[in-house]
């Protein structure tokens, strides 16, 4: 083995260690963040960032691993939010309402998936927009949830921001763990095969329809739980907030920014989006969507792999420079 290849092999080991160490360190750091006493506003931003990460990672299971870009994830977010809200107001423990929110969202994903997964590519994407808008209109006119006026959650307990923060962090961590389990399982291998070539996948024994429905359900369940956690924090939800088309776009944008079809890209994208979204919305209330649009165009044109692709490119450049600097004696 030449020193060059030794260096590359050592680089491979380091990369493997980093792959697990960095997220663990990051997660531990996020766990200790509140101890630094950042103040209510910064904690709120971090809480919302955790939720962004949860939804981003969830979308990636369907849009990234399976290659089925859905523009309708606000449906699951909204249904999760309303399920939790109704449960909490009905006296159910909030922590029990989250699995219920996940369940309702998963059920909805099956109802939506059964007809829409008969479509492919852009037709599927368009169908999800249609379903999403239809659900929003129905919710706007549904009397028992307050219709367009929205729905208020009344809890007889004091507001504890840290509890919300840790719930959000746990949800984000759960989403990442589920995403990893999916990615490295037989199920995940089948999803990747579908993403690459659906005909070839079916000709290898993969059932594309059932696999897509299952991926949709897992992603919807996580998104629904995220919506539930958000609803309890916000204490007030409305169809124009949780079911908004912008919400669907945001959920899809985060993994694209970070890098679709990877484990950590959506985490990175959700993190970046969560942190800057508040600031951008406050500073440019009219233009922040335009900025995101421009960002997506730039990413698709120059780095379809998103931030992860960019990091990979930089890593290869550094490795090449260092291996190149080695001279035989």
């Amino acid at each position, binding site marked *: 083995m030449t020193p060059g290849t030794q260096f590359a092999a050592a680089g491979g080991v380091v990369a493997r260690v980093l792959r697990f160490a960095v997220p663990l360190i990051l997660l531990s750091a996020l766990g200790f963040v509140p101890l630094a006493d950042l103040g209510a506003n910064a904690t709120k931003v971090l809480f919302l960032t955790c939720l962004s990460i949860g939804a981003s990672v969830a979308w990636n299971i369907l849009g990234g691993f399976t290659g089925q870009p859905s523009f309708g994830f606000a449906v699951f977010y909204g249904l999760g939010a309303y399920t939790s809200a109704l449960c909490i107001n009905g006296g159910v423990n909030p922590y029990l309402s989250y699995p219920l929110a996940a369940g309702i969202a998963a059920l909805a994903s099956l109802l939506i998936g059964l007809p829409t997964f008969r479509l492919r590519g852009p037709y599927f994407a368009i169908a999800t927009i249609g379903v999403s808008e239809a659900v929003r209109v129905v919710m706007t006119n549904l009397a028992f949830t307050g219709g367009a006026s929205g729905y208020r959650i009344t809890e007889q307990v004091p507001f504890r921001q840290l509890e919300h923060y840790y719930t959000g962090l746990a949800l984000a961590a759960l989403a990442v763990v589920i995403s990893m389990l999916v990615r490295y399982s037989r199920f995940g291998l089948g999803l990747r095969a579908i993403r690459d070539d659906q*005909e*070839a996948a079916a000709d290898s024994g993969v059932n594309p329809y059932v696999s897509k429905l299952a991926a949709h359900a897992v992603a919807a369940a996580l998104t629904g739980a995220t919506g539930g956690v958000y609803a309890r924090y916000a204490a007030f939800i409305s169809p124009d907030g949780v079911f908004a088309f912008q919400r669907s776009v945001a959920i899809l944008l985060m993994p694209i920014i970070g890098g679709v079809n990877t484990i950590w890209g959506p985490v990175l994208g959700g993190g970046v989006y969560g942190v800057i979204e508040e600031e951008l919305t406050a500073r440019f209330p009219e233009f922040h969507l335009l900025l995101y649009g421009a960002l997506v165009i730039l990413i698709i044109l120059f780095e379809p792999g998103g931030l992860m692709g960019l990091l990979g490119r930089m890593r290869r450049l550094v490795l090449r420079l260092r291996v190149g600097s080695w001279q035989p004696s």
Partner: protein
Amino acid sequence: MAAILTLEGVSKYFAGLAALDGVSFEVREGEIVGLIGPNGAGKTTLFSIIAGSQAPTSGKITFQGRDITGVKSFRAVHAGIARTHQITKPFRSMTVRENVEVGLRFGRQSGAHSAGRGPIQNQVREILALVGIERLADMSSVTLPVGDLKRLELARTLAARPSLLLLDEVCAGLTESEMASILDLLRDIQKRGTTIIYVEHNLRAILSTCQHVVVLNFGKKLAEGPPQEMQNNPAVIEAYIGKKAEA
């Protein structure tokens, strides 16, 4: 030998155009059957129908005594039928090893049935060695040249452990030596007990490997029989190169 596959009056219409019109024949277990015919004869359509990628408009297909007419392709794979494609379809984001793993983990003897064959990586290695691309196991499938892609497609199909293998022009675009080695491989696969239906334009390849040949023309079965006989059959010659002009 018993028939492993029986086609009875299989037809396929595309908006009134008959791509296949009442095709019937039998494939006996353990044979290599050549399926030949001029361009547009319906060979690939027939393949897609047997493999479940398309449903026939009418007719019946029986495989190992079971009616499999119109079953979906993944069910056909689980029943023991696997196909390759004329234009190879590798899983482009995967390595060669992972491509084969898909066939192993979702094919006929996946899950509980694969127990006893050893760890999955050993099975992958065994199949890659059989088709002669073991050295490429960790390469990304997008980087492979045509010849190796054809072998990868064959490896992934074999990984599904089929009893009936459908090969669509596996020699197209290959050099003479590559073709000879693929044909040796087909004979080897046959010896291991797999029945093969082989679509090929190269008549030399068909003559040197097949025990039986079915000739299609304009969606109909023109003739069938031993390869030498088909080569001298006036109807087959006419379908391929036309009639002698009358003086």
